[in-house]
């Protein structure tokens, strides 16, 4: 593979098992440097499992995981992972939550705060520095969590359905913020979602997984929409609708299979 740029993440025929249960049979996922890849698939197909594998929490039963060309051993030190559920520390203010990773690195609390404040501003939370998580709305907490992950400047960002619990308007807002941040400083990004609109709006490529158990990759569709993208105007364009149809023709069948399997 000479002449090709190194991939940020390279999963080759990865199989993941929990005891006798084969969650993922054969997954291939290649993410280039500074590429934004969305992964969609029916519920329970192994999307979170894939992220856990990329971050090094799970070891594949077969296949290879490489990060920037090197086989992954132990935890992935290039990745930042924004979990599906809420993981903020309730006893720390917004700014201290954002600066948490820096404190873990050995920075002083003052230093961490000084770095955290501009990040809160970037996600539109200027003035909320001293709030505790329970004093923030769901969307605001997600933004804090996003800043908490991004402040560490990981080369690979992993996000597991980060906005699925939010209402449509807040989600649009989050899309805009995320795209702005990503466009300003491009990183490799793997974004898991149930929402096809969201996947097409944000990503460079949409990867479709088959229904589980024993899931695999069934589609890999490049999203050719020009950037920078206007989140609100995009979804009515012909190009968008065509892409939606194309991906849904892959995903729709899988979703039905997973319903059929669950009775």
């Amino acid at each position, binding site marked *: 593979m000479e002449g090709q740029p190194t991939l940020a993440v390279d999963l080759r025929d990865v199989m993941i098992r929990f005891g006798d249960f084969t969650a993922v049979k054969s997954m291939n996922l290649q993410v280039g440097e500074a590429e934004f890849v969305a992964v969609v698939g029916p519920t329970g197909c192994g999307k979170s499992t894939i992220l856990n594998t990329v971050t090094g929490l799970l070891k594949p039963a077969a296949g290879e995981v490489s990060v920037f060309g090197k086989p992954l051993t132990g935890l992935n030190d290039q990745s930042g992972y924004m*979990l599906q559920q809420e993981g*903020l*520390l309730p006893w*720390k203010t917004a700014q201290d939550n954002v600066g948490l*990773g820096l404190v873990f*690195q050995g920075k002083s609390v003052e230093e961490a705060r000084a770095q955290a404040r501009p990040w809160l501003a970037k996600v539109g939370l200027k003035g909320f520095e001293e709030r*505790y998580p329970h004093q923030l709305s769901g969307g605001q907490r997600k933004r804090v969590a996003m800043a908490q992950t991004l402040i560490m400047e990981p080369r690979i960002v992993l996000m597991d359905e980060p906005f699925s619990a939010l209402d449509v308007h807040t989600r649009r807002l989050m899309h805009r913020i995320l795209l702005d941040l990503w466009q300003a400083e491009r990183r490799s990004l793997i974004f898991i979602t149930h929402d096809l609109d969201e996947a097409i709006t944000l990503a460079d490529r949409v990867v479709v997984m088959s229904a589980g158990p024993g899931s695999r990759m069934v589609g890999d569709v490049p999203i050719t929409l020009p950037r920078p993208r206007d989140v609100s105007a995009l979804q009515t364009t012909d190009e968008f609708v065509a892409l939606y149809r194309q991906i849904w023709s892959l995903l729709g069948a899988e979703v039905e299979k997973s319903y059929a399997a669950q009775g």
Partner: protein
Amino acid sequence: MPRRGKVVLVQVAIVLSLLLVWESGVRAGLIDPFFFPAPSTLVARIGEWMSTADFWTDVGVTLLETILSFVAGIAIGTTLGIWLGLNPFAAEVVQPFIKMFNAIPRILLGPIFVIWFGLGLTSKVALGVTLVLFVAFFNTFQGVREVNPVVLANARLLRASKWSLLRHVYLPSATTWILSSLRVSVGMAVMGAVVAEYLGSSAGLGHLIAQAEGVLDAAGVFAGIIVLSAFVVALDAVVDRAEKRLLVWRPAPAHEV
């Protein structure tokens, strides 16, 4: 009137009417003052005590014993709770022994501690520690075990070291439990000190009560109990303030919002 004011008003009213009934009952000859000395007698007795240096020595001795057993018990119990909370294997090994020790009626240890440590301060503190330790231990253990797993995973993903996890995740998460244990522990520490004094000593509030009892002086016993209650209430107020400061991050209970 603010809610707090109303609460205090009703509380004062209850106490006053109770005292009034009691006092007039004694004066009317309906209550035997030998068993239930009138409130006025008790107030007089406490006043009398407060003018003597011996009484203040007794209070000082009990206070010192209480504080020492409280601090030592909390320190040992919390450390043990964190250690076993983080080590499931060790916890499983030690659990039956802890249950066994905790099942011993602590009052029986009093005489043994007197034999081991003599009549002075040490035997009192030792008894207090055995009482406080378990409360602190069980609460801390529980608190460490009940850390929100998502919060924990998130901190780990942010590359927290073991020490950072302890400091930023486990300990703050366990504070609610540890604080609730402080509350009970204050009472336990006082109890340990007073019971040990009562069993055998030459100073302290427990000694004061034991002496009064020795001469069937009910007024002395009652007055001693009142002083003790005031003592515990005062210590409790200190814990209350600590709790308010440490738990600012918690949402206020719904009815206060």
